[in-house]
């Protein structure tokens, strides 16, 4: 397959799964924003507005993590219920193109939700600079990438769509609700703070909090000046690791 055909294939998959269904049922878009906005609402309300900005950053991260859980559900549904993946495996479409196409379709669903959070970010604080915008953009891109790789890997092991109903919320809980994504890491007692850094979303949120000029957590080691580079390093490393895991462990042709 030439690169041109690969791109055509990728966009067709994204269009089929991400544009056509939304044209037919625009309410799908509300689904992607419901959970992130609910958390934002309660945290902002309970903190009397003091945590509004960290929660906006959290909403962005949760929206992107939701892409991974949606991808995991779609992949499982297409594989187990529709046998669509079998049809794709036995075709010129390669595994990375199929997954990237579906991941892009999930991203398309998330655009309205992300737009709301970006609008809130801009409206509730000082105007963001180009560097801040780039930081937010690249961070969210990495979250999209690692959550998609994780979703693909998990989906290849599921044999029933109901398993995704169990694991999806668990992944969201472990990656975004418990770690300091909607709130600053400094809220966690120092002794337990290293646990928060087990979640890749913590690094992403930390970077977003900096771009939002909220101040951010102290690094686990090294001087404070190194905190942001270490966040980038960890996020990129985890993303690359999850991609390697997906490439090595995910099952395209069954054993």
């Amino acid at each position, binding site marked *: 397959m030439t690169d041109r055909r690969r791109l055509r294939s990728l966009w067709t998959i994204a269009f089929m799964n991400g544009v*056509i269904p939304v044209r037919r049922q625009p309410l799908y878009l509300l689904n992607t924003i419901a959970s992130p906005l609910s958390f934002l609402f309660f945290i902002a309300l309970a903190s009397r507005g003091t945590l509004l900005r960290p929660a906006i950053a959290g909403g962005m991260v949760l929206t992107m993590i939701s892409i991974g859980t949606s991808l995991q559900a779609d992949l499982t549904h297409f594989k187990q219920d*529709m*046998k669509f993946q*079998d049809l794709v495996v*036995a*075709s*010129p479409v390669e595994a990375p193109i199929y997954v990237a196409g579906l991941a892009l379709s999930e991203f398309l669903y998330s655009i309205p939700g992300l737009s709301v959070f970006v609008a809130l970010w801009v409206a509730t604080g000082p105007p963001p600079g180009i560097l801040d915008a780039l930081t937010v953009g690249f961070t969210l891109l990495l979250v999209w990438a690692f959550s998609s790789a994780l979703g693909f890997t998990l989906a290849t092991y599921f044999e029933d769509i109901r398993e995704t109903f169990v694991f999806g919320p668990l992944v969201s809980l472990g990656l975004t609700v418990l770690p300091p994504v909607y709130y600053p890491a400094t809220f966690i007692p120092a002794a337990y703070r290293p646990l928060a850094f087990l979640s890749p979303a913590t690094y992403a949120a930390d970077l977003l909090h900096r771009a939002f000029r909220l101040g951010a957590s102290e690094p686990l080691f090294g001087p404070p000046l190194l905190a942001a580079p270490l966040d980038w390093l960890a996020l990129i490393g985890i993303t690359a690791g999850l991609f390697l895991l997906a490439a090595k462990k995910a099952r395209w042709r069954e054993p």
Partner: protein
Amino acid sequence: MADAIRAERLGKTYPHSKDAALVGIDLRIPAGSVYGLIGRNGAGKTTFVRIASTQLMPSEGEIWVLGHDAVAEPRSVRARIAVIPQESRPLYFLTIDELVFHHLRMRGMERAEARRRTDQVLGQMGLADRADTLVSRLSGGLRRRAMVAMIFASDAELLFLDEPTTGLDPLARREVWAAIQRAREGGRTVLLTTHYLDEAEALSSRLALIERGRVIVEGTPADIRGRVKYPFRVTLPASLSQSELTSYGEVSGVAGGWLVFAREEAARELTRLALGRNLAVAMAPISLEDIFLQLVGRPLTEGESAGEEVA
């Protein structure tokens, strides 16, 4: 004629299973032909299709598809094949037209060519007047036809159709048959698995009968007929006793009477006997179903309700 598929000593045992799904399969499927794989549920047909179409790894043996080693060079194979997986369903949020058109685009086809092929196949399959109907609003039979249209519209040289007409009404089956014949006339190879033996016989230039993961018999329909002991069937009423019939051939009880498999002369003699006694009698060449019964010792449909197909 070159082989589209060549399997040698092909075997498959699924992980976590003690029993082999395929054992020592040797098959050559000529290019440009329609080849029928027949057998009961769980016999191993789908396992063979999944291995040949690079969805599943074999446990042993070798398989070449369109000149490529399907195990070592799956990408070279995948570029030239298309599959309707067993029990597959079309994406329900698309219309029939979108389903076919985007399937072609997903395979990398240019827009204009995809449009032309979509319009053509929808016309050929009698789906043009429903092109804009959502798949979710179609009956099961129409959904299956939409899947078939999707695969036939592709530019694949080798088509794997795993029970493509299951659930179709007779008219829709004929439309799928016509599409298969057009594919063959166009020089494509079709590997067809089916429970419908009339379908296999009508469409296939060669057949393989699989039972418990092994090929029981292989050849042209005429070859296969020639290999059974009794090429004729005679059905007779229950008023005749079994002991009267056993000298003519192989007797088995059926609803309302007897079924006797016999050689031609014995079958004619038995028919004359029944007519002489004014009894209803029917004599005919055996069907593939009968061949299956004679070779395997039980009917093709036995055990179907158990849904024992493992993959």
